[in-house]
């Protein structure tokens, strides 16, 4: 009878035999298909600033500087677009009096009252999450849980400037064939500053054809912002995160009428 050790030795020796080189025609076939194969862009910010190229870092820093300059100009001069307009939901108190005119950045034009844009120039992972994989029928699911990032956020409305905390859970589905299927995610946002905080969550979904819809986040105010709500979503831009949103009263969710 073979011993365990002997079996291991024989198996290791046997595994050493066999091909070790990928034929050129296979590699060529792959490289031929690459230009026609679009990359899957994730809904979440994968790469941290430390992993960015020097050019990307410079671009991020430049973006923050531009936002700061625009923010200071807006606060000091009454806004890019002219007369300041009050937010429809300004709170009573210090935070409210500090609220700048809700005017736009040069790239987005004038904002309506209550609107704001915000930029998270860089963020860093503050909590490492977990990755796991399981199966549902023929589908393979890669589950990501609990990763959290944080970074400075600068907004045209200082109530949304401070520290931005972002957490993300996601499920990526893969078909039996090995091709990617849908990706569903849930994300949490928290913005903190000396006066108070905003916190909210939302969902996102992406499809294999690269169609994706990221979350509209409903933020609920705390501290000086208690009683306020804001709606915020991600937009394109040069920051690590670009947000656009509005401080507003959110109507109650209606119940659809189903008959008497």
């Amino acid at each position, binding site marked *: 009878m*073979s011993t365990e050790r002997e079996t*291991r030795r024989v*198996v290791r020796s046997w595994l050493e035999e066999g*091909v070790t080189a990928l034929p050129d025609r*296979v590699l060529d076939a792959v490289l031929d298909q690459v230009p026609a194969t679009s990359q899957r862009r994730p809904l979440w910010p*994968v790469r941290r600033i430390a992993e*960015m190229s020097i050019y990307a870092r410079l671009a991020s820093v430049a973006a923050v500087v531009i936002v700061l300059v625009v923010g200071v100009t807006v606060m000091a001069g009454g806004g890019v677009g002219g007369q300041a307009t009050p937010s429809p939901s300004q709170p009573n108190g210090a935070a409210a009096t500090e609220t700048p005119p809700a005017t736009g950045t040069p790239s987005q034009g004038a904002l309506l009252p209550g609107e704001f844009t915000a930029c998270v120039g860089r963020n860093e992972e503050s909590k490492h999450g977990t990755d796991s994989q399981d199966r549902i029928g023929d589908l393979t699911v890669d589950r990501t849980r609990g990763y959290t990032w944080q970074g400075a956020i600068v907004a045209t409305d200082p109530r949304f400037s401070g520290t931005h905390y972002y957490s993300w859970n996601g499920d990526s589905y893969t078909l039996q064939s090995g091709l990617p299927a849908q990706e569903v995610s849930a994300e949490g946002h928290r913005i903190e500053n000396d006066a108070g905080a905003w916190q909210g969550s939302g969902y996102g979904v992406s499809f294999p054809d690269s169609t994706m819809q990221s979350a509209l986040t409903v933020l609920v105010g705390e501290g000086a912002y208690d009683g306020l709500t804001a709606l915020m979503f991600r937009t394109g831009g040069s920051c690590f995160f670009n947000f656009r949103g509005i401080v507003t009263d959110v109507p109650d969710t209606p119940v659809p009428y189903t008959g008497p």
Partner: protein
Amino acid sequence: MDAKLVARAQDGDEEAFASLAVAIGDQLHAVSHRILRDLDLAEDATQQALLAIWRDLPTLRDPARFEAWSYRLLVRACYAEGRRTRRWAPNLRLLPTDEPVAGEGLSLVHDRDQLERGFRRLSIDHRAVVVLHHYLDMPLQSVAETLGVPIGTVRSRLHYAMRGLRAALDADARPARQEAIR
């Protein structure tokens, strides 16, 4: 693996990806061939894995984990190839062979045949653990992370697989040994 090269490929740089594919292609192919035990299937699996790597590269969080992550996609491609062939393969039952074996010792050729038979009886799940651990010398914790399963599952699969291979060696040798004793 050069993290900068990985980062460039993540940003859609096709030349950077080509360099990565050349660098890891041989090793991926060697692993897929050892898991699938079929050259054509291994080539298909490696090709699918490399394309999946290109497609999903932007979702890789840590470029330093590129190789381990690539093996995960490769094993997934092997699963897909394994399933594809199982659909077409007839339900064969392997019978013990009556090849003569000289003396008490197992010849290398005989070992090879028995291992091949024993290995083919294993599922892709079990084969992947054996190959990653015994061919790539991956620690069990790394195998667990690569496959995305708990380390207990990896230990259990490895134990089951090695027990199966040992049984294949012993059982297939037994008739010949008994014959030799007579």
